[in-house]
């Protein structure tokens, strides 16, 4: 029973962290985009404009919630909920730190659902459910632009899911487990998967961009051609939820990449150098800091790329997915398999 309560508490913390991170990302996105364009960015609300996301959310809440006349109301309502729920529920398998050794000798794992033996599969499965939110949003709005956005999104996600899965398979072959904690443990001491799987990392990274609908693959919401894509007909906090889901997705994608390729919370030499024992509170905090640091680098990359690259054309996107990433992913598996087979 107490473990249930504990899990609930951890879940609540994880949710709040994710939402705060999403808010912070909105702010950072605007700031970084401004810097890249010789501008300053939001700096009026609160110190350094830090309260800008709060003001944004307040604005979204007070806006009128418009449902188009011919929309399919239940689906129109459910779609943003699916999007955000999926984006947030992935969090539970992510391990931002190892464990805390309690007085009675039990291990308190920091992850919400630690040692799930299909952790990675869970992520892949849920992230593809996210497409339902977008497709339903596009379809239920009864608007051609929304529908096109939703369709594009489903095609894009299915195409890149494959490449992503193949890249992940190779990483799993190296790590020997689907469990997030195990994957991190197998990379301890600086034996990060990125050194053995540079190609896999690249494929996974590109696929993550496509999965999260971020530029240069933000075709589902390509403004010049589709107005706003699948969320054209959304307003108020429903639109806010889509917005939030995008950033939450970015966060989870970065966290998964960190886990899979960058050694998760692992930092070679430093913990032993500082004399941090495994299972103690300082060690846990240190690990959290390392994890957050790595995730931040990836998140910065997400934003940085968005404000650098122009959007792909649809055929280019499909070409890249099916004719480049997929064969590369397969080749990567074969090579990795051979090496793992002969070396181990």
């Amino acid at each position, binding site marked *: 029973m107490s473990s249930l309560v504990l899990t609930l508490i951890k879940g609540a913390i994880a949710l709040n962290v994710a939402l705060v991170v999403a808010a912070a990302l909105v702010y950072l996105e605007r700031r970084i985009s401004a*810097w890249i*364009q*010789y501008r300053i960015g939001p700096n009026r609300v609160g110190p350094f404009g830090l309260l800008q996301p709060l003001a944004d959310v307040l604005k979204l809440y007070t806006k009128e919630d418009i449902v188009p006349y011919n929309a399919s109301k239940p689906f129109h309502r459910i779609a943003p909920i699916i999007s955000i729920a999926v984006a947030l529920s992935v969090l539970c398998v992510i391990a931002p730190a190892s464990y805390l050794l309690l007085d009675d000798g039990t291990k308190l794992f920091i992850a919400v659902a630690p040692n799930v033996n299909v952790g990675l599969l869970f992520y892949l499965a849920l992230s593809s459910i996210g497409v339902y939110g977008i497709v339903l949003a596009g379809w239920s709005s009864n608007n051609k632009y929304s529908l096109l956005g939703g369709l594009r999104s489903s095609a894009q996600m299915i195409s890149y899911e494959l490449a992503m899965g193949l890249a992940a398979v190779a990483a799993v072959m190296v790590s020997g487990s689907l469990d997030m904690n195990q994957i991190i443990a197998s990379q301890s001491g600086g034996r990060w998967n990125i050194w053995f799987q540079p190609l896999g990392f690249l494929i996974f990274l590109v696929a993550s961009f496509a999965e999260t609908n971020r530029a240069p693959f933000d075709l589902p919401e390509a403004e010049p051609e589709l107005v706003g894509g699948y969320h054209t007909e959304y307003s108020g906090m429903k639109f806010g939820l889509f917005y939030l889901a995008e950033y939450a997705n970015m966060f989870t994608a970065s966290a998964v990449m960190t886990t899979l390729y960058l050694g998760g919370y692992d930092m070679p030499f430093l913990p032993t150098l500082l004399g941090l024992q495994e299972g103690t509170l300082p060690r846990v905090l240190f690990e959290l800091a390392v994890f957050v640091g790595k995730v931040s680098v990836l998140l910065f990359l997400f934003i*940085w790329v968005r404000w650098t690259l122009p959007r792909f054309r649809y055929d280019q996107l499909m070409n890249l997915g099916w004719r480049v990433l997929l064969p590369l992913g397969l080749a990567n598996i074969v090579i990795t398999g051979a090496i793992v087979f002969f070396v181990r």
Partner: protein
Amino acid sequence: MNVTTNTRAQRMTFWEKLYLPEIAKGLALTFKTMFKPKLTRQYPEERWEPLGSYRGRPVLVLEEDGERCVACGLCSRVCPALAIEVQAGETEREKERYPVKFEINMLRCIYCGLCEEVCPEEAIVMSKDYDIVFHSQEEAIFGKDKLLVPIARLQERLEFLRQYK
């Protein structure tokens, strides 16, 4: 016409076709840009001071002994947006006529400067004011109280007109 055999894609080198090196170049460029000085002007605190050639809102020139305008109505006549209304009256002063009522509807004005160009007395000129705000349509009609500006503050524009008009 052999256009299709020499497209941009075919002229790309191998490295360019790989995308990634070019993407890295682009990323490096934007990263450098992040630390360059910003061009933003923090508007209400930092204001931009226009040059004499700037066409801000039209104002009436006010000299020591009253306004220059003789209420000839030419500006009102020429205004393409029909923004100006003038009502003439008689005065004891040497120029005999003055505007009893002079109104410019700032919602109509398009800042074309024709009124200034046509005025025989150089009595209406374009000022440097560019932040013109109002909360209602009534407020947008500027009467003489808002239009009259001391000549000392319009020297730069008058100088500009003398040189280039």
